[in-house]
């Protein structure tokens, strides 16, 4: 693969004051490279320096092997196109006219569009799915539509490299995904190299082949997402408090640091909504006994819950059962999330039945029949939906234990 952009010990900043030091980036044809990091870390500064809008404070940016500062603007514009964060102050200009601006480095002195130019503009509008917007006034478009048109404009320059500064900010989730997908397609199909900054970490990690973590005036790490993003990389990169980013699931969970009041017996993803509900109720939670390959295990751990876990694919031993029983005794109530019944899970059901018989309020999300099959005559209250748990947990046991029997 051929190299499109390379930097050598680049320092980026303003007025000869370096904000980010020693940037080493190599962008190959067809690669998507994403800069992630907290606000103000210097992502925009790096992108502006890479696109030649800011002079490097030190070092050099090479575009196709040539120093960017030595290239003629019109020539550079045929290799490199940008999508910026700034708002456009255009009026009486259609989306097509904006996209057609991208032909500027290719047209003659008066900017006249040849039939070939027009064909390329239409093709670029089609590539981003914005053909139907062509005749609309640019200012009347939604943020997402504007962003697509601006990408079409950049594309109309027929660049080999596109640099985008936070192209998904202010967009709704559908347009965020569309923009990222469009960029991915352009990279895969046309061999376009894309360098961008993204706010959405999970989108970045899932869509880009290469990530650069920018923090505290330096590139903290760079490489393939699988190599760079560890379990708490993102949490540390952004200095997140009270929440954590789960690298396996690619999502953020709010932490629940409260002492456990509820014991949640879960599995196979039935636990996650209950954990989240308890968190919203400001109720501490513990969970068990979870197999370590269970999605509930990942979620519970991201939330910082007290977890009793068992190695994957192995039966639950008596030691774990005792540990869970001790935990259960400290709790005010227990929840059966309706996890699938299997031989391996039987200890969880036994734990809950014992607890119910000893007088601990136990709520089950199973169907009434299933509930009877699991607990027989034990005083377990069946709930129709997770949302009912909030009210049920507040009530007194005496109110319902009679009905259950």
């Amino acid at each position, binding site marked *: 693969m051929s190299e499109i952009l390379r930097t050598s010990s680049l320092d980026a900043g303003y007025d000869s004051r370096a904000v980010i030091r020693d940037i080493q980036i190599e962008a190959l044809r067809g690669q998507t490279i994403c800069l992630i990091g907290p606000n103000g870390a210097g992502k925009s500064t790096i992108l502006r320096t890479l696109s030649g809008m800011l002079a490097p404070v030190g070092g050099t940016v090479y575009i196709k092997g040539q120093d960017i500062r030595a290239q003629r603007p019109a020539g550079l514009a045929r290799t490199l196109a*940008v999508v910026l964060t*700034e708002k456009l102050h255009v009026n*009486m200009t259609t989306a*097509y*006219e*904006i996209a057609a*601006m991208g032909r500027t480095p290719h047209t003659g002195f008066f*900017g006249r569009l040849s039939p070939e130019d*027009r064909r390329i503009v239409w093709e670029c509008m089609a590539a981003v799915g914005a053909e139907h917007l062509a005749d609309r006034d640019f200012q009347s478009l939604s943020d997402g539509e504007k962003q697509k048109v601006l990408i079409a404009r950049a594309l109309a320059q027929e660049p080999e490299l596109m640099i985008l500064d936070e192209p998904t900010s202010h967009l709704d989730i559908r347009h965020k995904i569309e923009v990222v997908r469009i960029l991915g397609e352009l990279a895969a199909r046309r061999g376009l190299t894309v360098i961008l900054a993204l706010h959405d970490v999970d989108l970045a990690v899932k869509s880009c082949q290469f990530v650069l973590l920018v923090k505290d005036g330096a590139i903290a790490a760079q490489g393939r997402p699988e190599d760079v993003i560890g379990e708490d990389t993102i949490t540390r990169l952004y200095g997140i408090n009270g929440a954590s980013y789960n690298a396996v699931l690619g999502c953020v969970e709010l932490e629940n640091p409260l002492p456990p009041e509820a014991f949640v017996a879960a599995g196979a993803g039935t636990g996650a909504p209950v954990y989240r509900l308890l968190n919203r109720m400001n109720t501490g939670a513990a969970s068990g006994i979870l197999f370590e390959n269970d999605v509930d295990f990942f979620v519970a751990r991201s939330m910082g819950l007290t977890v009793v876990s068992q190695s994957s694919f192995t039966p639950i031993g008596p030691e774990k059962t005792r540990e869970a029983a001790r935990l259960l005794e400290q709790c005010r109530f227990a929840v059966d999330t309706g996890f699938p019944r299997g031989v391996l899970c039987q200890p969880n059901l036994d734990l809950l039945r014992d607890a119910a018989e000893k007088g601990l309020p136990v709520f089950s999300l199973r169907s009434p029949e299933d509930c009877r099959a699991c607990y027989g005559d034990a005083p377990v209250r069946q709930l129709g939906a997770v949302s009912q748990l909030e009210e049920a947990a507040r009530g007194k046991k005496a109110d319902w234990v009679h009905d259950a029997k």
Partner: protein
Amino acid sequence: MGRQNAVRWMSWLSVLLAGTVLVFLLNVGLGSVNISLGDILRVLFGEASPAENAYLIIWRVRLPRALASLAGGAALSIAGLLLQTFFANPIVEPYVLGVSSGSSLFVALVTLGGYTFGVSRVTPVFLFLGAFTGAMLVMSAVLFAAARVKNVVTLLIVGLMAGYLCSAATSVLSAFAQREQIANYAMWSMGSFAGFTWPQVGILYAIVLATLLLSCLLAKPLNALSMGDRYAESMGIRVKPVRFAIILLSSVLTAAVTAFAGPVSFIGLAVPHICRILMRTSDSRILIPAGMLGGALMAGACDFAARTVVSPAELPLGAITAIIGAPVVVFLLTGREKL
């Protein structure tokens, strides 16, 4: 969509051209003195004797004035268009930014100063150079302010204040003017195409035509610049020289008009905006020709109204242009949320 737009553009350009020709003919043909069509034709084809009344009125008064109003209108309209792109703001023009008033002040200085220092006759070129100096000085002040505050309204207020200051200084100067000059002076300082001499028309046309031609060459960079400096640069436009050219050309255009016709308001603002609406585009390649024709048409029509509405008396040109222009400013300001 391309063909449809081309039809729209060509038809409106034809309408503007026809309108301009019509206004020119009206300006030559009608006035406070009735001259028959036959007499007009005789004068134009050189068959009338120079001693005739009709000859004097047509040749000395109406023709230079009609020609001057066309060139003046086109110049102001393009100056406005250039500045609107420069400031990324549809509400600026030479008059609003105080550039016209700066020019006037220096013209007044040159005129009155010239008399004081015993220069018996101030040449048109000298007047223009004075006007140009004034235009560039106010422009520099406005640019200085614009670099510090990015707010549109602040920019307008700075321009307005610069304009007031220069107008105030100009009226102080008028106290020193000789009695017989004052009437002319008052008319001129409110903007008027009256009293153009042939040498002045010649200078006006030479400067304005050359500058307008140069402005046409800026069409492509102007379009790119409408997306902002950064985008323009990323598309291979060298922004600094283009910005310098815009300031220079718009100052020359303003100065050329102001030197002889005084500060003429609002044409530079209303015409580009009306053209954008008619043409439904901001493409400079269309707006520049449309703005020239539209400016010529509007200035010609306003001058016609100024001369004929209360004939034989004359209305100040500024009154007519403001009646058309001021509502456009208000419309643009109130609609700005959408821009």
